[in-house]
């Protein structure tokens, strides 16, 4: 046996291992191949949410079609996950200190969503295994968030931190999870619809909705659609002025108050004499 033969055998063994590992890896990855048969066609009632003077939260309807229509739609489920703009944030932990409830910093998050909604035609646990759902970052506790270290390094946040962030968001009404056949409707395996309830304290920015079609515990199709929320009219003007010309804005606020107070005093004088 020459060295050449030995090298050739080693190469062949390596190839075989690679093939094995590769095949295994392929089997583990969610298979988009299966999804190719079905397609979700998404649309939205409106793509721009106007945060105008009359905004007090609103409904946004996501709807669309499934092509070709599912023949066995009784076993199919639809999951819609909507994620608001990501923002840096500080997460605080309430702790009892000397009999008082005080806040303690827990972590600095680089990319907390400012809103998250999870709508599904059935409770998630009935739709698919947790490990399958986790691959698609479902439910919100599986969101890939990042924390900022003291040194400013960005690191993945561990599950307990993500769960804490979700709890904090939920406390502010920024997480909406609803399940049921009325929450996400699927008609005749061809038409679907989901109503998103956007809260009154909605953040400005881009929103991403991901739609998943499940059958027998696996995803057979997925789609995405985006929409945006923007301050409009006088609210936009005010918010911009406050941030771009803060001193001028402050002066305007003070002048307004002085003027109003002076007017009130004039009114009062006329009445009393």
């Amino acid at each position: 046996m020459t060295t050449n033969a030995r090298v050739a055998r080693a190469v062949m063994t390596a190839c075989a291992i690679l093939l094995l590992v590769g095949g295994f890896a392929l089997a583990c990855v969610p298979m988009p191949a299966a999804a190719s048969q079905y397609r979700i066609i998404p649309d939205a009632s409106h793509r721009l949410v106007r945060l105008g003077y009359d905004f007090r939260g609103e409904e946004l309807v996501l709807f669309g079609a499934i092509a070709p229509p599912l023949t066995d739609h009784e076993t199919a489920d639809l999951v819609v996950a909507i994620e608001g703009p990501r923002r840096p944030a500080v997460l605080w932990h309430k702790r009892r200190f000397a009999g008082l409830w005080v806040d303690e910093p827990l972590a600095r998050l680089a990319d907390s969503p400012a809103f998250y909604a999870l709508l599904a035609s059935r409770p998630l646990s009935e739709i698919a295994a947790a490990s399958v759902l986790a691959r698609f970052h479902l439910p919100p506790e599986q969101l890939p968030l990042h924390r900022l270290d003291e040194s400013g390094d960005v690191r993945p946040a561990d599950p307990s931190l993500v769960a804490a962030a979700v709890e904090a968001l939920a406390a502010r009404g920024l997480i909406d999870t609803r399940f049921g056949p009325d929450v996400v409707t699927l008609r005749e395996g061809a038409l679907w619809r989901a109503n998103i309830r956007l809260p009154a304290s909605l953040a400005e920015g881009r929103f991403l909705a991901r739609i998943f079609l499940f059958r027998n515990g696996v995803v057979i199709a997925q789609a995405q659609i985006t929409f945006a929320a923007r301050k409009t009219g006088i609210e936009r003007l005010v918010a911009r002025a406050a941030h771009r010309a803060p001193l001028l804005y402050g002066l305007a606020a003070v002048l307004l108050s002085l003027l109003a107070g002076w007017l009130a005093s004039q009114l009062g004088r006329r009445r009393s004499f």
Partner: protein
Amino acid sequence: MSLYFPIAEIAFNIYLIVALGALVGLLSGMFGVGGGFLVTPLLMFLGVPAPVAVATGANLITASSVSGALAHARRGGIDIKMGWILTVGGGIGAFVGAWLFGLLKSLGQLDVVIALTYALLLGTVGVLMLAESLRALIRRHRQGADTPLRPRRRRHVGLRYALPFKMRFRASKLYISALLPLAVGFVVGVLAAVMGVGGGFLMIPAMIYIIGMPAAVVVGTSLFQIVFVTAFATLLHAAETQSVDILLSAALVVGAVAGAQYGARLASRVAGVEFRVLLALMVLLVAMRMAWSLFVAPAALYRIEWGLP
């Protein structure tokens, strides 16, 4: 009708906000208090972020104090020189207060500190006011007349004369150290910036008992200081934390202007003692609600706040 407030980033029924302003105006018309101690906590209870509630509260007090200050100015009820020194102290205090505000915000303890100071200060003031008004009520029942409380002026506080930088205040008939009003103004300025109050409830007793000013110029001079110091605090908050909601304060001011007119008329018609009891109870209620948030287990153990310090 609902209105979305762009800095508070929350929608409210406009009538609710105007009514809140009217309540504050009513109080300021009747008692000559700025009403900040009421409007800032109430805004927080409604869900306005604490920084926005404080900054917007300060802005409202400017409006509700101007008309009072003008009325006192017309009948010579302001010691202008004293007012300016209190204002300078208040300006420095507001500056320090705004810095403290930013620091506490970055440490995450702002809400706790605001709640704690409110609970302590309002609790003390509320108890004192209640005691005073109840005493007056009892006295009236005995004598059959509503005699105003005459503050005992202790003319010989040594400190007042011992300190350097003595100045003559003609309107107050005083020759005392300028450091005294400067210090009083400073403390009130810090409170204005941190709590979003005018601080009259603290300044008026301090003017009577510490500085030794005559009652005739106390209210006017305190209003004079409050106008300038809250205006400065508003400016600082706008410049540093961008937390003044001009639409929110405009809605509040509309209510306050109307409320103040009605309050002034009401004050001249109705005996004040019962209302003083009511005001004291209101102050105590706010103090208790603030204390409640500190001692009772919160509904959520985690809190998220946008932006990095």
